[in-house]
């Protein structure tokens, strides 16, 4: 493994500035809290929520999480909250919830407890201490992750090396026809393109035939009407061809001509 963790050991000692105000790093909040309001806003914004703020209050005074001096911390916490409210900062609901939690713990601790039951009964602070520890763990972990070697920041990759693509035979993928059908019907529904009657007449094979006829007309100017009707296609085939011709005439794409009375009918492009 070529990863070095030595630098991670010092993580506790890393003093990440709370904020930079006019280029000056602020590592701690001044005791008297006297700061220009916008500067204070930046500092308070730098907390990742009430747990982070509580941790800061504890750590900055070298207090022990496990001995959480609840009244002292509550007092300070509330001071911050009030300050934020005074400054009309958008205070997340989580901050208010924590204030209530602290007040609750404080009041529970003040209640006289029978010595016997104390051992069994949960320390009112326990849940909060657990949460603080848990949060601190992952906060520290996140700092360690930040220090890991990261691509495009700490190390780099070569660009994909150019190569000459040797063409493959099959160039295009075929379509999912089912998807295509569904797309078509959806489209038609949306557009209200067709009336129900139209749909019934709109036989796909007629459409196909129309294209075939137009294709033939590209090759020769005139086509004998009769050559378009193949007996081997059966009755339905004949009907399809006939409908296709009628449809093409209706669309003004082709026209029928009869040079002489009695001669064949020819079809030509219009």
């Amino acid at each position, binding site marked *: 493994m070529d990863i070095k963790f030595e630098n991670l050991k010092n993580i506790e000692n890393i003093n990440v500035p709370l904020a930079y105000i006019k280029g000056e790093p602020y590592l701690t909040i001044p005791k008297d809290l006297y700061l220009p309001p916008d500067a204070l806003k930046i500092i308070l914004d730098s907390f990742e929520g009430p747990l982070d703020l509580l941790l800061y209050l504890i750590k900055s005074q070298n207090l022990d999480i496990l001995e959480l001096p609840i009244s002292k911390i509550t007092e300070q916490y509330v001071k911050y909250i009030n300050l934020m409210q005074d400054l009309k900062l958008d205070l997340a609901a989580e901050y208010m919830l924590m204030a209530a939690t602290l007040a609750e713990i404080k009041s529970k601790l003040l209640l006289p407890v029978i010595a016997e039951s104390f051992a069994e009964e949960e320390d009112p602070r326990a849940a909060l201490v657990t949460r603080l520890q848990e949060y601190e763990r992952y906060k520290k972990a996140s700092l360690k992750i930040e220090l890991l070697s990261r691509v495009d920041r700490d190390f*780099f990759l*070569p660009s994909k090396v*150019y190569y000459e693509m*040797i063409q493959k035979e099959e160039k*295009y993928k075929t379509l999912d026809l089912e998807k295509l059908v569904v*797309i*078509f019907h959806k489209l038609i529904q949306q557009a209200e393109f067709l009336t129900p009657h139209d749909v019934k007449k709109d036989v*796909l094979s007629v459409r196909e035939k129309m*294209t075939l006829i137009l294709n033939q007309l590209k090759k020769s100017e005139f086509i004998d009407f009769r050559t378009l009707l193949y007996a081997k296609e059966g009755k339905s085939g004949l009907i399809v061809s006939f409908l296709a011709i009628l449809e093409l005439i209706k669309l003004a794409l082709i026209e029928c001509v009869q040079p002489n009375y009695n001669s064949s009918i020819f079809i030509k492009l219009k």
Partner: protein
Amino acid sequence: MENIKIKKIIESLIFSSSFPITINEIKNFFSDFSITSKLIEELIVEIQHTYIDSGVNLKKVSSGYRFQIAEDCNLWVSKFHPEKPQKYSRALMETLALIIYKQPITRTEIEAVRGVSVTSNIIKTLLEVEWIKIIGYKEAPGKPAIFGTTKEFLDSHNLVSLNQMPKLDDIIIKMAENEKKDFKSLDGALNENISFNNENDDYSGENIH
């Protein structure tokens, strides 16, 4: 700085760049060390020699130097990287669907149904893959092209005739069955965007074919 170090850095710069690099660019980059173009050129020749039998070679192209896969490896590399299966856009599918079902059809007519314009690219792609072709021009201002499907479209989709296109009813049944089996979706895109109105008989498969 030692030449060997400079050479290594030049190598890494060329490898890291997605564009070819010129000698001038390298020279400017090392401006603090006043390295001559001649030295850079010499070092590049050295690198070229180092890589002569390697899987990549340092080549000079019009815009500078870059590494390229060795010529005798191109075929292998091409084989290794499967060509990205071309993904067709919904716009293209819609356009093709209209050409299939409403052929012969002009672009304007397609646009009228889709409610949006059909880009030239879509038509170009469809013409290129030879799934559609121009089967004539309409007697109308501008003589718009009329499109229809091709034999190649049928061939490449294993159809003999358009009659063999899947029928909507069958698809609906299949999808319903799949849903019963609690499959998340037969096709994500489909289920997401398309809701069937089964009450509307007008669009049942039988009628359309």
